[in-house]
């Protein structure tokens, strides 16, 4: 036990170092990198799909996606869902999460090199224990910022097949379908999501029209749904700039001085 814990980080690091990193650096030359909902974790590469038309347009100030030239660019079929819903009779697609997770080749190597049952033995139970690996993702495993210490890695991740999540029965679930995982604990939100109310869909609004469905992890960080003292499932973003003041308006004092400092003199 002790020995692998010391060795694994080194081993992991060397594997990571050997892999190319398409997220930063040279990738920028090919086109802008923009993000959808999670900064750095829902990246899209801008490129031409037809002459004069790019797959996306990006905000010059925040890098957020402002426009879809093709809303279905880079999507795959959502796959079978265990329930009867709208999308059973229309084409539903999702953006796969696996390439996003695999940006540092983590997913490619994880089952082969580390979690192969020997090098890192499969855990005997799913009790919480301190971890030395994956601190970049979960800084303190004993203080997981999801579930108020009531859930553990193995409530979500497959104990043996680390490239998979799990459903209620422990069956393997793809990272591309996290809704099956999340839905087992967040039933009400899941139902709302299926109705197209929670979360987001883009593409064709009409009945039977093709839709791209946002999966849970495109908005939520499963390892931190608390986001500090704000206690909100969604991480803060940079806002787009405020409107330019109309002619003749010198400042916005008339809007300030409320709330935070009650009774300001600028009503």
């Amino acid at each position: 036990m002790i020995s692998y814990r010391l060795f694994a980080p080194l081993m992991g690091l060397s594997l990571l170092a050997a892999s190319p990193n398409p997220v930063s650096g040279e990738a920028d030359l090919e086109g802008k990198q923009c993000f959808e909902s999670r900064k750095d974790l829902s990246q899209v590469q801008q490129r031409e799909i037809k002459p004069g038309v790019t797959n996306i347009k990006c905000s010059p100030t925040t890098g957020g996606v402002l426009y879809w030239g093709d809303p279905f660019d880079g999507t795959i079929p959502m796959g079978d869902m265990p329930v009867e819903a709208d999308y059973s009779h229309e084409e539903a697609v999702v953006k796969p999460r696996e390439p996003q997770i695999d940006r540092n080749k983590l997913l490619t190597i994880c089952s082969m090199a580390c979690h192969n049952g020997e090098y890192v033995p499969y855990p005997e139970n799913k009790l919480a224990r301190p971890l030395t690996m994956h601190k970049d993702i979960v800084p303190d495993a004993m203080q997981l910022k999801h579930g108020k210490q009531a859930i553990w890695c193995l409530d979500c991740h497959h104990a043996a097949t680390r490239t998979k999540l799990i459903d209620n029965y422990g069956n393997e679930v793809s990272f591309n379908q996290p809704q099956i995982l999340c839905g087992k604990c967040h039933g009400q939100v899941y139902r709302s999501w299926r109705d197209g109310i929670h979360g987001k869909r883009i593409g064709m609004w009409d009945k039977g029209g093709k839709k791209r469905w946002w999966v849970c992890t495109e908005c939520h960080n499963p390892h931190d749904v608390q986001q500090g003292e704000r206690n909100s499932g969604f991480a803060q973003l940079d806002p787009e700039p405020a409107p330019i003041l109309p002619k003749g308006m010198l400042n916005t004092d008339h809007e300030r001085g409320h709330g935070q400092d009650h009774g300001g003199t600028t009503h």
Partner: protein
Amino acid sequence: MSSQINKQNNHNSRAKDVSRRDFLRKAGTYSAASLTGAAMLLSPRPARATKNVTWAEHFQKNYRLMTDEEKEEAIERLVKRYSEEFGKKVNVNDTPAIDGVLFGYALNIQKCIGCRRCVKACVAENNQSRGDKQQIEWIRVMRLEKGKFSEEDRDNSGYPQDFGIQVGGNAYKPAGVVLEGQHYYEADKVPEKDAFYLPMQCMQCEKPPCVKVCPVRTTYRDPDGIVVIDYNWCIGCRMCIGACPYWARRFNWGEPDLPAADMNPDTHYLGNRPRMKGVVEKCTFCIQRTRKGRWTGCVEVCPVGARKLGNLLDPDSDVRKILATKKVFRLRADLNTYPKFFYFMN
């Protein structure tokens, strides 16, 4: 809420006064301008859109009264003019309302984080004027601040302190949520801890006051519930701006500034086709997209999925499900404008 709405109301009644006062003078100027389109060619700094407006375009009928051939001609003229102006193939659609569709919009006020991405996406999609000289945005995100509840505040300051009005009792205690709308807020990161956000845009009222007041009937409600404007018949009187309780209409005071490279060539006659100086514009639920089955720009870019658009006549649509299962309200329901833009909570 009420104080914000009141403020907005004040603003509107002010705007209304102004537009009434200025009505004759300004309306005179603009209608004269549109009649003497050719004279515009001689103006010293001819700006793009207005300069190229042809006689035929000036004397065409109100869109609703055009025959199919006339529509076709009008569109051909526009396609030619826009394609030359912007140096690319521009489409001008006249896609009619889809039978059995009444558009409704629902916005989750609990989710909105005030990032204004919808505002900018709308500008990119709908060819509004941009840049320092004239910036037109159809969506307005209001920031509403929550109050503080500290002991110190209770005794040292209150709300509303400098109004000088006491209603008796504990008037000098903080009132909690303050709800003054802030339009020009700047924040490092959103959502801020002590604020929430309320975006506003055209509510596509079933009984639109803007349509009632338009003296030339250039703005009207189409069968799918979208309130549209035939820009060519707009005389720029701005009565509609004064009549709108939702602050949704914008006026092109100057020549629109729309860089050719950023121009969205997929347009609709009653929607995002490039506008001229002196006309009013507003949100049309992205008529150029929605009438072809595609979601609006704002729905598609909202990073939190707070924006929903669907068919109010279809019980399976997401909007109908929201109306059926969530807590829903509309702004200024008391005015009997019957907006088809709903706000809801989880």
